[in-house]
Every structure is written in structure tokens, then in C-alpha cells.
């Protein structure tokens, strides 16, 4: 069980590192490119919004995985 938890946390950390790197790459923030627009939002903004939500979701998943873990309480 603990091994599975550690593996899952490593996967989430990997995704977080990938999202961090992507945020500062042309994938999310291409220089001088406004389009394509989605629902009126320019590209770097809607991808930025997606990344923001992704980090909140990743944080939520960490909290679910760590729920059963012994903690500082």
C-alpha cells in the first residue's frame, strides 16, 4: 500500500514538473503569438488557465493519496 502511494506521488510530482517546465515553454507561452483564441481568450491566457486548474487538481490528488498517511496531528 505504502509502495503504491509512493509511486502515485512520484507520478504526480513528475506531472507537476512537466507542467512547470511547459508553463515557460512555447507550449504554454509562445512569444508574440496571440491566437488561437478559445471562447474569446487569447492562447497564453487559456493555456495558463488550464495550467492553473491542473495544479489545483494535482494538489487535490496529492491530498487524496495522503489522506490515509500518518501525519503531524
Amino acid at each position, binding site marked *: 500500500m505504502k509502495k503504491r502511494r509512493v509511486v502515485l506521488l512520484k507520478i504526480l510530482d513528475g506531472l507537476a514538473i512537466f507542467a512547470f517546465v511547459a508553463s515557460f515553454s512555447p507550449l504554454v507561452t509562445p512569444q508574440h503569438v496571440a491566437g488561437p483564441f478559445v471562447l474569446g481568450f487569447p492562447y497564453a491566457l487559456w493555456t495558463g488557465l488550464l495550467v492553473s486548474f491542473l495544479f489545483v487538481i494535482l494538489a487535490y490528488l496529492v491530498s487524496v493519496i495522503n489522506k490515509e498517511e500518518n501525519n503531524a*496531528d
Partner: protein
Amino acid sequence: MLTKFLIAGVIYLGILVFLVRRTRVREKTTSSYLLGGGNIGFVIGLFTTAATLFSAFTVIGMPDFFRTHGIGAWIFLAVSDTMMVYALIRIGEMLRRKARKLDFKGMSGLMVNTYGAKLAGYVAFGGAVIFLIPYIAVQISGISIFLNAAFPDAIPVWAWSLIIVGIMILYSETGGLRAIMYNDTLQGILLFITIWIIGWNCISHFGSIPSMFNKVESISNELLSVPGPKGLFTTQFLIISAIAIISLPFTQPQISTRVVIMKSSSALRKMAIGLGIVAILIILPTLFMGMYGAVLYPEASTQEFIGHVLLYDQAEGIAALGLIGLIAAAISTSDSQIFALGSELRSLLTLRDQKAVLITRIFIFLFGILALIFSILSTEHLVLLARTSFTGTAMMGPMILVGILSSRKPSLLMPVVTVMILIIFILAKIGMIPSKIGVLEIELSLFAILAIASVLEVFLLGKAKGTTLSD
């Protein structure tokens, strides 16, 4: 407008007084006064952390940042804030464990205990004082200048600063951290409601979000991409900002204290996730305000633009609420920072508790006065000074993280390197040494040195001493 502002101000002050009376601590000990009883639930924890995090720089600085530099400001703050939430949820629990084990009174004291050397504590405390006092001051001065511009015939700028600092000191001294947290909750809710009403009004001006961006595109296409019209949001700028903001829960004592005193790990987890959602919801309306300004007031000064978007273009009732929201945003961050500096000092004192708390209260008062003096002397460059403050404290991040994550006492390498790095950073900021090394901004070079020092500590010195990272 002045009448409505005064009515709203009296109601706001009345609620503050009520909360201070409810939370008043009669017997002031480190636990009850400085750590708020150490039993903070999810809702209060969320609002106090959010109010502490989102200061005047969010209300004034971010709309202006969006207006001047475009949508890259979202990556600068919102994306970085949600990254911070992930770091908080991953490392916060380890901080809490360490804090429980080593009788946490403040991050500086924790560093003394972790490293077994006073130097580490002095570095953490010194860094906090150097970088937080100017940030507190610039917030107070920013709001005071703005209030003076709104009511030019009322009272001078310094008198507004005095009133704001007076309110902060009064309720901090009376009720301690618990009073601050309850007031933060009030201020956080007020800020949230105000900023959304104004943001919504800004969208309504255009009819819809797509037509708002269409209009912005017709004025300046560069606002809709990075690095923005003035080229500010370079990849290096965004990375440095992200590192600085991600480090906040561990390097800014007013936030780390809140992480430690949460009632339970479950409350901390809920607070962290809530904080991510609140960050998105607070920054989004500042984007709308900024785009509104980019179309209607592209050439205006910050003062003029904020004056229009918060006051003159709003109904009088909303404008009065906007002003109170602005004051609340500044106060809720500044009071927490001043109080946290006091707590940091307390954590370094090894005196009898009653005497230590008394000295701490005197210093909270002195830190307030110091911030007041700086605020009267300083000019306002809110966002960039806030970023310098975040980056400066982030330089202490590796030392603090190595301290938190090590299961045994680390060597003095990290405190010594951190002192040197802080000196170099300050010299670069005041222009005595270049702010770039080759193509790299100096901050990135300094972060790289700190990272190398951390690797050396953990994998070489730590192994030699048997130091390991706790899981």
C-alpha cells in the same frame, strides 16, 4: 462619496472592534497570543492565508500590470500561485512534523534548532526584516497616496498612513494572531466581493469577454501575448517570479506560521486546495479590470487608472466599498507581516515566556513604526517591489527546505552560502554590481548557486555526517 466612504468605514471599523473584543487574549503567552492557540480550522485558515497573500499589490498592482504588460501577468501570478499550492500540499506536512517535533515558535527559531546554530536563525530573521519592512511600507504608502488623491481636501498622506498603522498596531497588540486571523477573514471576504463586483462591471462595459479581448486586440495586439508590449514577461522573469512565489509558504513567516498552526493535516489540505481556487478567482477580475484600463485608459498613470476603475467609473456605493476593500487588502497583509516579524524575534529569544512575549509586543510596535517611517519616505512601485521582496525571501528557501527536510543536523554550508547570496542580491538591487551574469539574470544565477550548495549539503556533507532527507 466621502459620506458613503465614511459610513462604510465606520461599519468596517465597528466590525473590527467587535472581532477584537471577541478574540481578545487576556493572558498573553506565546501559544495563545503569537500562535493564535494553534488550532485553526479550514475556513479561517483559508481566508486568513488568502487575505495575507493577496495584498494591495493584487488590487492596485495586478490590474495595472495587466493593463501595461498584458495577459502574461496571469502566468506571472496566477500560475505561480497554483504552483505554490502544490508545493504547500507536498511540503507543508513535513514542515508541520518538524514544527511539532522542535516546539515551533517561528521559522527563525526552527532553523536554530534544525541546524543547531544561531547563524541559521539570524539569517532567516534578518532576511525577513530586510525584505518585509520595505514591502509593508510601500503598501501603506500606496494606499495612503491613493486615499489622498480620492479625498484631496481631507487629510495629508502621512495622516492616512498613521491611521492605517494605528489600526494595525492596536488590534495586533490587543488580540494577537487570533484577532488578526478573524479580521483577515472579514477583509478577505470584503476584498473578494468588491473585486468581483468591479471586475464584472468592467466586462459589462464591453458586453462579453470575447468582445473585450477583440477591443484590446484592436488597440495593442502585444497585450494578448508574452512578453507584452514592453517586453517584461521574458521566460527568465517568469521563472524567477515562479520560484519566488512557490517558496512563499516556507520563506515568508506570516504564511509558514499559518501552515504550522492549522488544526489538522486534513484542514491544511483543504486550505491549500481552497487557496488555489481562491487565487484563480481573485486574480481573474483583476485581468478584466486591466483589460478595461488598456482600452479606456492606456496612457493614464497608475493613480489615474486605479482612480477610474475603482472609484470614478463605479456607482458611489461600490466606490466606497472599493476603497474599504483596498484598505482591507493592505491592512490584512501588512499586519500579518509585522506580527510575523515579532513572532520570528520571539522564536530566537530564550527568556521566560512572559518576558519574551512582552519584548515581542514592544518590537511589534517598533516594526509598525519603522514601516510607517519607511512608508512616508518611500514611493510606490508596488508589484515590482513586492516581487523583489518575494525573491529576496526566496533566497532563504533552499536553506529552510534543507533544514525542514533533513532528518539530522545539516552543516553550516547553507546558512553561510545564503548570507553571501543575500548580500550579492541586495548589492545587485541597489545597483552596486551588475544585475546580469552573461545572459542570465542575477537571481537565476544565485538560485543556481543555492541549488548546487543544497545538493552538496544533502548528497556529500549530509552523507558524510549521515544526514538524510526525510520522506
